[in-house]
């Protein structure tokens, strides 16, 4: 009986005295796996990822360290390495700093609101209530509706002479919601929370199916009321879904563009709702400064990664 054993998953031989041929084979196996045909199957998706995500990301990082602008094919222009100049330009621009602060405000309002509403509504919808399917579809419709169409409805509701102000009468804010520096970003945060809610409810509904019913029964036997049962069974039971919802909500918030572009007409009033992506669009596409725009993009990506990792660590620790 041979004494060769293989570590599961790696294909690496652990024979105390392996031949060089086996060692070589094990190296090849380590790279292409034990079933090379699998590489063939994943190749289209890898190609997609490389073309659509990896290449633009790497190109953006490259652009951010060079003096770069878009040219017609065949036009040769010097694109010197400029080190951190583009990052310096971005980080000393008050508009860029304000846009990051604006996104901070957005995230502080939008993420908790999204998590709480999505979870509460998912729990409610998970129960056998009347017209459950109708309600599920109702929450999902804004998510699948084009932002442009939904923004038009919100403009009708929240403009100065809109329905909401007419209902509020003398209590209506002055200046109105979308031209009020203090209310513009919170209004966008609430709008996005409402629009995305259907998707996050679906995530929670799926997670709720995996919470064992026995836990609720045990909690009931122990005398837990509905709130205690929700807090001690449901919330921990959907923790991994919460991590996902938080991270997706953060990514959505960091990519904010349509709402400040349309709802507050280009990040108004006076830049109070400008988002980094809106600035990337202005600087990169409108003003033809893709190098500075790329630097803002890289900073944004790094920021989102750090916040997401911190959230993952905080939410998933036991």
């Amino acid at each position, binding site marked *: 009986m041979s004494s060769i054993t293989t570590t599961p998953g790696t294909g690496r031989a652990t024979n105390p005295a392996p031949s060089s041929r086996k060692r070589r084979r094990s190296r090849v196996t380590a790279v292409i796996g034990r079933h090379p045909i699998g590489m063939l199957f994943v190749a289209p998706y890898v190609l997609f990822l490389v073309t659509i995500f990896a290449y633009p990301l790497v190109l953006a990082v*490259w652009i951010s360290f060079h003096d770069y602008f878009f040219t017609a*094919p065949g036009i040769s222009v010097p694109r010197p390495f400029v080190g951190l100049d583009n990052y310096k330009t971005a980080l000393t621009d008050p508009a860029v700093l304000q846009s990051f602060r604006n996104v901070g405000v957005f995230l502080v309002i939008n993420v908790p609101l999204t998590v709480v509403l999505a979870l509460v509504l998912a729990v409610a919808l998970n129960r056998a209530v009347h017209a459950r399917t109708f309600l599920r579809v109702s929450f999902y419709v804004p998510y699948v509706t084009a932002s442009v169409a939904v923004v038009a409805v919100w403009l009708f509701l929240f403009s100065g002479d809109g329905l909401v102000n007419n209902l509020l009468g003398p209590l209506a804010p002055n200046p109105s919601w979308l*031209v009020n520096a203090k209310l513009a970003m919170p209004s966008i945060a609430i709008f996005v929370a409402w629009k995305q809610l259907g998707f996050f409810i679906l995530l929670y509904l799926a997670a709720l199916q995996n919470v064992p019913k026995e836990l609720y029964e045990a909690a009931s036997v122990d005398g837990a009321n509905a709130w205690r049962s929700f807090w001690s069974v449901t919330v921990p039971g959907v923790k991994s879904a919460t991590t996902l919802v938080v991270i997706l909500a953060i990514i959505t918030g960091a990519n904010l563009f349509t709402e400040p572009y349309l709802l507050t007409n280009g990040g108004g009033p006076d830049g109070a709702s400008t988002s980094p992506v809106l600035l990337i669009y202005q600087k990169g596409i409108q003003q033809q400064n893709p190098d500075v725009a790329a630097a803002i993009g890289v900073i944004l990506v790094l920021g989102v990664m750090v916040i997401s990792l911190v959230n993952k660590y905080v939410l998933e620790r036991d």
Partner: protein
Amino acid sequence: MKRLSRTLPAATLVVGLGLLSACGGSSGGGTAASDASTVKGPIKIWLSNNTEELGWGKAMVASWNAAHPKEKITAQEIPAGKSSEEVIGAAITAGNAPCLIFNTAPAAVPQFQKQGGLVPLENFKGAVDYLKARSGATLDQYKSADGKHYQIPWKSNPVMIFYNKDIMKKAGVDPANPPLATYDEFLATSRKIVKSGAAPAAIYPAPTSEFFQSWFDFYPLYAAESGGKQLVEDGKATFDDPAGQSVAKFWSTLYAEKLAPNEKYNGDSFADSKAAMSIVGPWAVAVYKGKVNWGVAPVPTSTGKSADQISTFSDAKNVAIYSSCKAQGTAWAVTKFATSKEQDGKLLEATGQMPLRTDLPTAYPDYFAKNPDYKLFAAQAARTVEVPNVSSSIEIWQAFRDEWTKSVIFAKAPVDASMTAAAKKIDELAAQS
């Protein structure tokens, strides 16, 4: 470690591929030889999606194609996008721009030129003489920093004040001759309109942050007040002067007294009678015909200059020849055909927009006799101011707009300090270009 041994090669491959491609992106061959300027053949052109312009464009193309079967034009509307300029910029980068675009915004020309996307008209024999003969001194405003011309001045929409006679009457203002010549008169009339409830707003320009919005509030009035100055001249911002400051203070008064709202109206405030006045070009004559009982006046100045002394923003759209064009000889021939006296007359007839010709009122006497509403615009077309032809044009306008919205529209900063800050920023941007 196990995971790393798999991830590392993949990541290295991806990063390596990306860097190779990124570095490769900066290389390229030389520019096309100027021989292309004599090449004949079929060409593609893009037209504005404005219905009337499209109608003119199709007729022009049909007329050309009938006479030039070997140099046929294929025309299409500019592809949809957030703006024409972004679509054109992307097409230049991708190398699939058409030969001619009959909707090239002068503000975007310096960028297209920097991208290597435009053909200098000096490449074509006699082109500059042709343009001088057609547009006269106006041509100087379209000369690029390198002394060459990359755009053919085509048509302007000199902006003026349209007013609703019915609202004026309701407010107790003489509808035939409302006092709008000086800032004081304009403000007094505006106060009457709003106070009487005749309309919720006296005037309603878009109070939003887009870089081009200043072309329809500050710039026409600054052109009038300053006697025809551009925003930037000789590499310096011009507007931090008494003329610019007085225009800014005039508008800030309108906003502060809520005579002009600071929230965007989602619709046409003038057509919907939400505003008594509007800053528009001659296109408005056809648009508001039968909908609004309108009158027209020049933009106001602090001293009430006479109409024949007033300059305004041109709101021009031009034609440019794009460097991806193979048959540039045909492109230039089509340009001359499309800007000929005959085709300019047809454009005027179809759209009401003013061809940028020196002899406009005298070249088409029948048209102006038949359409007297356009006479004032035609007279105004002789005194128009274009956006400055500098390479950071759009960044400059955005810098101006940011300070304008902060101080004039939302009163978050003193107007004079904001204008000074905008001028300083624009000086820096102009110096970089």
